[in-house]
C-alpha cells in the first residue's frame, strides 16, 4: 500500500521511525533526568532529620523517586515528544537526507509523517500510562510521599471530607488507611448527612472499621462503634443505634482519592476525576480536569505540527533560527494552555473552552504551518 508516493511502513518510514524512537529515548533520559533532579532539589527537605528524632530511610526516599518517575514524565510528556521530533528533524537535515528525499520526489510532509504518527502514539500512551500507573503504583507512591512529606511512620488523614457514591457529604475526623496487623482501614469520628424521602438524617459514629461481612448481598462495609442515626429536622427524638453504615457508601480508596483531590488534583487519573465529577456534577474543577485529561495528550501532535515546519526550512542559517522559533511557539502553547486551564479550574471560563481553546488555536496554526512546508 502506498501513500504519497511512498510505501506505508517501507524503508524510509522505518528509517525515520527508528530515528524518532532513538531520539525519543534520548529526549526521555534528558528531560525526565532533569525533572528528577529538579524534583530532588525541590524536595530535599524530605531527607532532613525529623523533629521527633529519626529520619526518612534512604531506601524509602529512593523508592519514592523511582515510583514518581512515570508521574514526572506525564507532566512534561509533550515536551519529550517535541524535543524528540526536533532531534529527528535536525539529524535528517544535517545529513542532507531531507534534500535527497525531496529530490526523489517525496514530499516533506510524507517524510516526517512517521514522526507525527509517533507523536499521536505517544499521546495515546500518555493516557494509558496515567490510568495504568495510577491504578498499579499510584497508591504506593502516594503512601511513601505522605510518609516523607509529613515525616511520620504511620499514615493518617485528619478532618477529611468526601462525597459518597450518591453524593452525600461525609466528614471523617481521622482516617487510617492501613493500621494494625493485618492492616485494615479505620476511621474515627464519622459524621455524615443523607437525605431519604425528603428527610435529612445525620449519621455519627465514634469509630468505623472496614470489614468483610458474611452477608452475600453486602460483602464489605464499615462496622461501627457507637453508631447513631437521627433525623435532623425533628427535635427531641431518640437517635437509633446502628452497627453498620447503611445509606452511605464509600470505600477506603474513595477516601484516598478525596485526599488526593484536596492536595494534588492534577495528579488524579481520568477515571478518578470521572467518578468525582459524577458525585459532584456542578463542580467546575472536575469538569475542567476531565477535559484536560483528554486535551493534554493531543499536545503531543500539536507541538510537533507547530515545531517541525520550522526545523525543515531550507536555506543557509535557517536551522538555528527555526529551532528557536519552534521552541518559542511551544513555550507559547504551554503558557496559553496553563492560563486557560487555570481559568477553567477557578471557574472564570467554561471547562470545555478552557481546555480545548489552546489545542484548537495552536492545532490550526500547526496544520497551516505543516501544510505550507516547502516541498
Amino acid at each position: 500500500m502506498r501513500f504519497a508516493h511512498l510505501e506505508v511502513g517501507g524503508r524510509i518510514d522505518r528509517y525515520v521511525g527508528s530515528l524518532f524512537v532513538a531520539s525519543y529515548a534520548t529526549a526521555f533520559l534528558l528531560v525526565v533526568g532533569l525533572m528528577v533532579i529538579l524534583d530532588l532539589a525541590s524536595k530535599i527537605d524530605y531527607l532532613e532529620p525529623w523533629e521527633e528524632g529519626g529520619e526518612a530511610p534512604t531506601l524509602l526516599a529512593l523508592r519514592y523517586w523511582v515510583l514518581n518517575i512515570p508521574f514526572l514524565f506525564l507532566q512534561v510528556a509533550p515536551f519529550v515528544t517535541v524535543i524528540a521530533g526536533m532531534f529527528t528533524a535536525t539529524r535528517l537535515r544535517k545529513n542532507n537526507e531531507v534534500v535527497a528525499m525531496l529530490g526523489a520526489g517525496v514530499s516533506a510532509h510524507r517524510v516526517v509523517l512517521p514522526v507525527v504518527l509517533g507523536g499521536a502514539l505517544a499521546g495515546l500512551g500518555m493516557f494509558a500510562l496515567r490510568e495504568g500507573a495510577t491504578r498499579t503504583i499510584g497508591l504506593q507512591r502516594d503512601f511513601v510521599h505522605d510518609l516523607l512529606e509529613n515525616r511520620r511512620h504511620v499514615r493518617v488523614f485528619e478532618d477529611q471530607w468526601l462525597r459518597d457514591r450518591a453524593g452525600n457529604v461525609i466528614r471523617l475526623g481521622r482516617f487510617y488507611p492501613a493500621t494494625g496487623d493485618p492492616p485494615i482501614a479505620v476511621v474515627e469520628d464519622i459524621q455524615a448527612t443523607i437525605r431519604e424521602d425528603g428527610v435529612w438524617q445525620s449519621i455519627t459514629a465514634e469509630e468505623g472499621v472496614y470489614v468483610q461481612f458474611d452477608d452475600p448481598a453486602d460483602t464489605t462495609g464499615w462496622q461501627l462503634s457507637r453508631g447513631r442515626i437521627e433525623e435532623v429536622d425533628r427535635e427531641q427524638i431518640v437517635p437509633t443505634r446502628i452497627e453498620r453504615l447503611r445509606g452511605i457508601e464509600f470505600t477506603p480508596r474513595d477516601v484516598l482519592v478525596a485526599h488526593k483531590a484536596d492536595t494534588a488534583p492534577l495528579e488524579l487519573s481520568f477515571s478518578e476525576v470521572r467518578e468525582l465529577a459524577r458525585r459532584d456534577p456542578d463542580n467546575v474543577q472536575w469538569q475542567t480536569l476531565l477535559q484536560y485529561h483528554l486535551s493534554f495528550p493531543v499536545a503531543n501532535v500539536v507541538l510537533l505540527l507547530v515545531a517541525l515546519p520550522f526545523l525543515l526550512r531550507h536555506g543557509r542559517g535557517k536551522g538555528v533560527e527555526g529551532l528557536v522559533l519552534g521552541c518559542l511557539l511551544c513555550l507559547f502553547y504551554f503558557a496559553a494552555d496553563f492560563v486557560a486551564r487555570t481559568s477553567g479550574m477557578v471557574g472564570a471560563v467554561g471547562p470545555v473552552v478552557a481546555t480545548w481553546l489552546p489545542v484548537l488555536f495552536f492545532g490550526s496554526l500547526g496544520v497551516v504551518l505543516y501544510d505550507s512546508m516547502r516541498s
Partner: protein
Amino acid sequence: MTLQLYILRQLGIAIAFAVGGMAFIAVPGIVVGAVHKLGSVGMQSVFGYLPLVAVELVPYLVPIGFLLALVSTYGRLAADNEWTAICMAGMHPVRLLLVPLLFAAAFGAGTWWLAANVTPRLKLAQRTYLKESMVGAFRRLAPGRTELRIGRFYISGRLRVEDTFYDVLIHVPGGDVGGERTLLADEARFEIVTGKTLTIAMRNARTVKGNVDFQSERPTVRVNLEKLFKADHSKRIAGKYMTNGEIREALRADLYDENPELERQLHFNVQERVALGFVYLMFLTLGVPTGLLLRRGTQLGALAAAVGYALGYYVLSVRAPRLLLDLEALSPAAAAWVSNSVGFAVGAVLCRRALWR
C-alpha cells in the same frame, strides 16, 4: 588570544543554549509543580510563587547547563579535529581550559552568594506564601466550585449560582461564638466583609451537630477568616533558614554552646554552600574529558553521560554528607565536601586519560 576568544565564544553560546534549553524544559515542570502544590488558587498566586521556586533551582540548572555546554563544546572541538590540530601546534591542553575556569569561577561565586544570602530567605517565604494564597483564593470565593474549604471550615452545596449555594452543608470549627457546629440549609449566600469576616446568610437552616438556636427564618453566621488557619507549630531548622551572616553572628555569640549538634549543623551549612560554588570546577573536570573521549557519533551519548554525572552527584549529595555528619565520622567541613571529592576523584581519572601528554 585568538584561540581563547574562540573557545570563549563557543562555550558562551553553548552555555546560553544549554541553560536556555533547560529552562525551556524546566519552566513547565516548575509551573506544573507550583500548580500542583497551590491547587486552584489562581494565576496571580502561581506567578507570584514561581520566582520563589525558580531562584532555588538556579544552583542546579546552571551547573548542569555548564556541564552540558562543556561536553558539547569540547566534544565538537574533538569531533572536528580542532583539538588534535591545537595539540599538534604545541599548545598544552590545559591552556585550553583557561576559559572554562573563568566561567567556573564566576558562576561559582554567584551560586555561593545565592546559596549564602538569598535562598535561605526564600525557603521561609515559600512556607508562608502557600497559606496566604489559600486565604486569598478563599476570599475570591472561587466561582464555580461547589465545595470550599479553608482550615477546618467547610462548605459544600449541591448547586451553586454565583455566591449562593443550594442544599448546602456548612461546618464551622470551634473557637468562634457558638462553638463547633455543622449546619444544613436550603440556601446560603456568602459574602466577605472587609476581607476578614465571612458572612453566611441562610434560609431554612437547621443544626446537624452542635448547639445552635436559630431565632430567625433567615439566620446569619459570621466567621473570622484570620482564625481559620492552623498555627504552624513546626520548628525552624536553624541553618536552612539562616543566611551566612546570621549563622556567623549566632556562632560568635555562642548561642548554641549547649547544643553541639546544632552547632555542627551550622558549620556544615556554611561549608555546604561553599562546596556548592565549587561544583562548576568539579563538573569541568568531568565534562571536558567526557566530551573529548566520547567524540564519536552525535554527542548524544556524551550528553546522556553528563546528565548521568549530574544525577549521580545530586543523589549522592542529598544523603551521604548528612549521614556522615550524623555519624560524626567526619568533621562538618569534611562532610560537606564528600560529594565534590568523589566527583573530583572521578574527574581526575578522566582528565588524565583525555589530557595527559
